């Protein structure tokens, strides 16, 4: 299966035009992470958008007195990494593979450049990213309410 096909099959890009997929796929490559491998670290440059195709990733925060705290898990068909969208382009959390994980990594620098050059594609992509961000924000709000009630 070509990288374009994998991108097209991923939930995030499922209704995306062939033209957009072809433009984005130029900057994409397949990556694999072993169990416990750190994918990115808080504060590092946010240089990638990952489309998880297999496995599970934890978003973590390391604290001095509580050790690693898992904030959220992300698995197949999810998107990993939203910090590449807005300055200062730095990861806000650590991301670690909880099991063998496969993903498509899209180079964020070139993706941003592509969005600047092709505003229509950029708008469509940003709408998808906003949807991811809104759903995660709603989930966090619900998580806070649930923690109080359960």
């Amino acid at each position, binding site marked *: 299966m070509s990288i374009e096909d994998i991108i097209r099959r991923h939930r995030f890009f499922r209704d995306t035009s062939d033209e957009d997929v072809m433009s984005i796929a130029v900057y994409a490559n397949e990556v694999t992470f072993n169990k416990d491998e750190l994918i990115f670290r808080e504060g590092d440059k946010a240089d990638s958008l990952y489309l998880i195709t297999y496995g*599970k990733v934890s978003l973590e925060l390391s604290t001095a007195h509580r050790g690693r705290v898992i904030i*959220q*898990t992300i698995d197949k068909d999810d998107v990993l990494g939203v910090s590449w969208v807005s300055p200062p382009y730095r990861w806000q959390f650590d991301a670690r593979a*909880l099991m063998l994980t496969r993903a498509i990594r899209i180079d964020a620098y070139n993706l941003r450049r592509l969005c600047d050059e092709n505003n229509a594609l950029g708008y469509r992509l940003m709408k998808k990213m906003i949807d991811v961000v809104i759903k995660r924000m709603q*989930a966090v709000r619900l998580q806070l*309410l*649930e923690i109080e*009630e*359960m």
Partner: protein
Amino acid sequence: MEYGGYIANPYIPRIYKVKNVKRETYNTFTLDVEVNDFRFLPGQFNMLYAFGIGEVPISISSDPADTHIISHTVRRVGYVTDAICNLKRGDSIGIRGPFGNPWPIDECKGNDILIVAGGLGLAPLRPLIYHLLSYRSRYGSVELLYGAKTPKDILYSKEIARWRARFDVDVYLTVDKADSNWFGNVGVVTSLLRKVHADPSHTYVFICGPEIMMRFVAKGLLDMGFRSSNIFISMERNMKCAIGLCGHCQFGPEFVCKDGPVFNYDRVARLLSIREV
């Protein structure tokens, strides 16, 4: 035979012996009580009476096919539940019941089943799960989504492991908070909805948990195309008389003890979003 519909005087508790007390989590206990041919339907509740202290409504959490032992899973949240959780094997407990409207187990035959539980909400759903597994061939796919606060707050963990091991049930777990020793999902129970394989047009959904969670789960399911008429939720209110007379558990025009605790979502959806009902 002891059955809710044939209680001679619903105000008088019958006295039973505690057979076993099992600690589920740091503050939650399951009491097994010895009874004699006690029949109930999944989703019904009993009023448990701690002598000299008070009475609380608690869902029955055991297998409805077992008419000699009934279980109640109780969380320590006040004086009465504290006293109940402190009971030991051989102690006496007063029970009135069973009361309330059960899960519609006959209506959902031939359909896929989706069960969504949050925290202690798994307890009223456990008899339903036992029933579904006992009569597995009557139903399509059976899926359970369960969210707990932390891995230590997961109820019935050994049973969940057994259910997960079956090939005819899909079980998904998530927790709100976890440390690095947890390798499962972290996030709200609504994040599990997209794992559901059930056919939205032929699925009955049973939800129990914090009210806010039930609202968001129902909303997520409606967005996915599930029918509101096939969604059922179990409500919790301050039940006192348990037979719809005292009004303590009134929820708009409904009495949770008598008209519920299991409601069709259509019937209460509007009430759930009204302030100060």
